[in-house]
């Protein structure tokens, strides 16, 4: 054990740091509300970043956590746009896919609606979703878990250039949503500010070390009853990401969220992200831009 630690310190491989945004990344997915009741309308939004431009994003929602999306068919459906299947074929595919837990599919980064049906036969309210939205998900059972899987396709490539579900080719993010009839459903926390050395906007010198601190709105750490009925209080965490420079620490408890960041040695703009998670599916984020001179 001594030597394990010794060697870990002395000869650990040098990896790229997870807090440095140097490629397409899915950083967070927010569901509003985070803990919906059956029949609710859930608005999903994703934080997907790419240093080279805007990535394309494909979404699949499933009612089973594992192996649900039939990626090949989904991709075919999405890429073909029209004419890939006859309406009968489409209906048959949708029936099979639904039986396999498929809830819906969408493309795009903008807030997307997921409608949880109250149950068959009427399938819930008709929201008249755009093509990029999820269709009515039909029957979401009470107290179930839904899984949303995002494939972020690196900028410069399109849906047709990659195989969805291939973690080597796309950046895959997953999000679980608990559907429950709770009297006090979980709420998303709120990040109110991301300050740099205490300032809301800042210009820093090259190589300068400054502090970053995300502040949460009051009430972001909720109290809730755990599985044993005991009252617990959330302990939210803040994860920081940067597009340049060096972070000494990147994941910290939200009640002591100050970290040190050293600006890069070259001038330019650097983007900073602070993502808060409440540990129960609730999340929020803030993005800031810093000028390095």
């Amino acid at each position, binding site marked *: 054990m*001594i030597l394990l630690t010794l060697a870990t310190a002395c000869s650990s*491989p040098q*990896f790229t740091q*997870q807090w440095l945004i140097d490629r397409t990344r899915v950083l967070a997915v927010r569901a509003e509300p985070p803990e919906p009741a059956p029949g609710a309308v859930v608005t999903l939004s994703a934080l997907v970043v790419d240093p080279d431009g805007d990535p394309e994003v494909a979404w699949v929602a499933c009612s089973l956590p594992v192996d649900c999306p039939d990626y090949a068919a989904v991709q075919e459906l999405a890429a073909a746009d029209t004419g890939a299947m006859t309406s009968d074929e489409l209906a048959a595919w949708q029936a099979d896919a639904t039986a396999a837990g498929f809830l819906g599919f969408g493309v795009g980064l903008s807030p997307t609606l997921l409608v949880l049906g109250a149950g068959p036969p009427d399938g819930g309210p008709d929201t008249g979703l755009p093509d990029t939205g999820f269709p009515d998900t039909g029957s979401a059972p009470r107290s179930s878990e839904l899984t949303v899987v995002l494939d972020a396709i690196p900028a410069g490539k399109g849906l047709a250039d990659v195989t969805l579900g291939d973690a080597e080719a796309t950046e895959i993010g997953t999000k679980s949503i608990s559907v429950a009839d709770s009297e006090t459903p979980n709420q998303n926390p709120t990040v109110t500010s991301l300050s740099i050395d205490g300032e809301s906007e800042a210009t820093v010198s090259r190589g300068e070390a400054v502090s970053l601190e995300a502040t949460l709105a009051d009430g972001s750490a909720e109290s809730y009853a755990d599985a044993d009925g005991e009252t*617990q209080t959330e302990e939210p965490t803040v*994860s920081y990401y940067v597009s340049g420079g060096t972070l000494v620490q990147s994941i910290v408890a939200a009640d002591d969220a100050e970290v040190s960041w050293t600006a890069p040695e070259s001038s330019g703009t650097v983007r900073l992200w602070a993502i808060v*998670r409440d540990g129960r*599916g609730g999340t929020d984020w803030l993005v800031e831009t810093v000028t390095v001179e």
Partner: protein
Amino acid sequence: MTGIIALVATALAQEPASDAPPTPPPGEAAAVVPPVLTRFVEAPWPDGAPPDPVEVVLRLTIDEAGQVSQADVITSGGPGFDEAALAAARNFVFTPATRAGVPVPVILDFSYRFALRPADPTPEAPPVAESPVRLEGVVRQMGTGRPLADVLVTAGSSSARTDAEGRFALRGLPDGEAAVSLTRTGFIPAREAITLGAGDAARVTWWVKAQDWDEAEVVGTWDPPRDEVVRYSVSMSEVRKVPGTFGDPIRVVETLPGAARPAFGTGQLIIRGSNPEDTGIYVDGIRIPRIYHLGGYESVIAPELIGDVQYFPGDFGVEYGRSTGGVVNVVSKAGYGDQPRIVWSTDFLDSGGVFTGRFGDHEVGVAARRSYVDALLSAVPGVGSFASPVWSDYQLRYAWKGREDIDFSVFALGMWDTLKVTLPEGGFGQGSLDDDGVASSTTAHRLIGRLAWRPAEAWELRLTPSVGVDIDSSSFGGAFASYTEQWQGSLRAEAGWRPSPHVDGLVGVDAMVGTYDSESQVPSGGGFGQLGGGGENEESDDTEVSSTFTDWSPALYARARLRPLRDPDTLVITPGLRLETDFTEYGNAVSLDPRLSARWKATKWLAFTVGGGRTTQAPQVTDRTELDGTASEVTPEHAWSASAGAELTPMDGALRLTATGFDKYMYDLIVSGNEFGFGEWDNSGVGRAYGLEAMVKLQPIHGAFGWVSYTLSRSERKDDEHDDWHGYEYDQTHNLVAVAGYRLPWEIDLGGKFQYTTGNPFTEQSAGTFDTDTGRYTPTSGPENGARLPPYYALDLRIEKGFTFKRAHLGLYADFLNVVKGDNPEFVLYNYDYTEVGYVSGLPFIPNLGFDLEVRL
């Protein structure tokens, strides 16, 4: 610490398999008291031979009566000399070697030196006895201060030999300057000058130095009649010189066949493809929880208190049980000699002292050690700030030697180890919430009593009671904490009977009772966090699990040893039975394990062995409880094993070659049914291990020793009968270890060790998906243990320089680890999203300096 006896150059004594008493039980030291030459016969100088000194090395077999029953030339001194030395040696008389007070036959190497005296006094010379004594004194051995018998003291035409008290007297010397020479085989010739005044009788004390500074009491390779199919042994004087083992006899087990290379810092004994916890570790036949301190560098017992390390890679006798792997039994040293001594050892890791002595009928040994590697580590930038290991141990041994037919001893030993590791921020490539770090501590104490009584020649009764406590605690960040306290009492009672040279038997009880209390605090999700690919552990609602149970496991065993042929040693068949039981509040289990071994000595230099049987192992404490604190319903694990081998001892035993094939099927293995590998226990696992072990060993002679161990093996597991076999995590196809040592003049010893091992299997992970709820990547796993690390190889070197003082000996040594080495990856690490792979490499080049100081009081 000298050559065994007068005129013996090499401290090699070996009991031939014939006519030996029953195998000592696990608790009994197998130390042999070496023979002492009582009648030396001078060989005539061969006619016409040149007057230069000549040495002939003989191998003598000395029977129970102390007579030389066989003599062979090992190193020739030339025509004429060999014959003369053989003829003389056949008329030597020794006091017989004894073990446990019983005379036993031994083999030893004897160096016969021929040297012409300056002027040989003839018997018809004037009766010098009537001349006055001009010079008298005592000759002592350097280092020990012991009086030396049989030293030839020569001055001019006068000469005398020292008596048993080392005294001599020379007569008839003229006044004035006298040049005196002191010679004895095995010792460096000394010259002294003295001026004799008119009519004076001068009194002197002179010191001579042994050519070899060696362990006196610990007899080297030792080969008793055996129940087990294979047992490898190495002498203490060899152990001391193996680089990288820090002179620790127990560490040498790692260089023997059947033992896989453990990951550094773990010190695990992975024997014949078994789990580390499946190998039983004993002190004098009593189980102890661990044999190595933190880091696996040093064992928990001072080397000076170890008499023998018995290593059985498998198919061991019925005295041992509760293990499906191998057995390592550390036998405490019995017989400290009449000279009290203190040994102090210091190196970069720790320091310790040992005292041994005999006072009348009472023998006392005391040892203690403490590490300070934590203080040294703190001086290393970037290391000491987070790693802080501390270990210490003690041993106390008392033995009463008042009666020949009774052995009585009490041995107390204990250890404390603590380790605190503060995880560096981002040290695993990730951010981390855990600034509490990792902490663990282990404390263990044992008190072992031993009483052996031989009421009649054919009978021996042995009783070994013990009590002990083991306390373990550990915590991992704020996420996981556990505390375990185990109190154990055990009693071993045996009766051995040997009615004839052709039959002997043994029956025994090996009973253990223990209470186990454990408490642990685990995250409610059961997730222990991953070091790679994540690093965030935000679970906070912990679950506390506690369990208490009592375990009562008396085992009964019996075995016979049959020697049906006229020469009792030609064929030895040992059938045995062991009834293994395990009674707890959680359930009861009883198994009857048959074992059988046989050994056939086909010729003087070729023997075949075969053995097999079943072994049973009760569930580990951790396997008895589920995560929610309820009792798991697991039953003991079992294994059937068989092995067969051949042993060649050509060149009169100077070389020893063994080859053994083994096959083992393990079933009812306890496996976890969940992804964390902890909890949801059941007995659905099975395993198999098979392979070939070979060893070539040069018996230590003239300061040279060495061996090569090679193991070719495969060990596989499956969690369920219906799964596919997958490699065991320590499966090492090839494991080659070569050890060699050589003694140069000027008390310089060189040693080297080379090891080559196939890399361990691991489960390959590839690019993961990002769980936006936890902020952690989940990898895609390849086949279980479907990939392998690159091979390991390393060369270690050691050099020691000895300094012998009148009553002290100082050994200064430098151990150089990894003088030559590969990348030697030990663990695989991934970056945060499992797209980059890296290794935690083995140790870098490490020089370790130290000294051993031995003082005779």
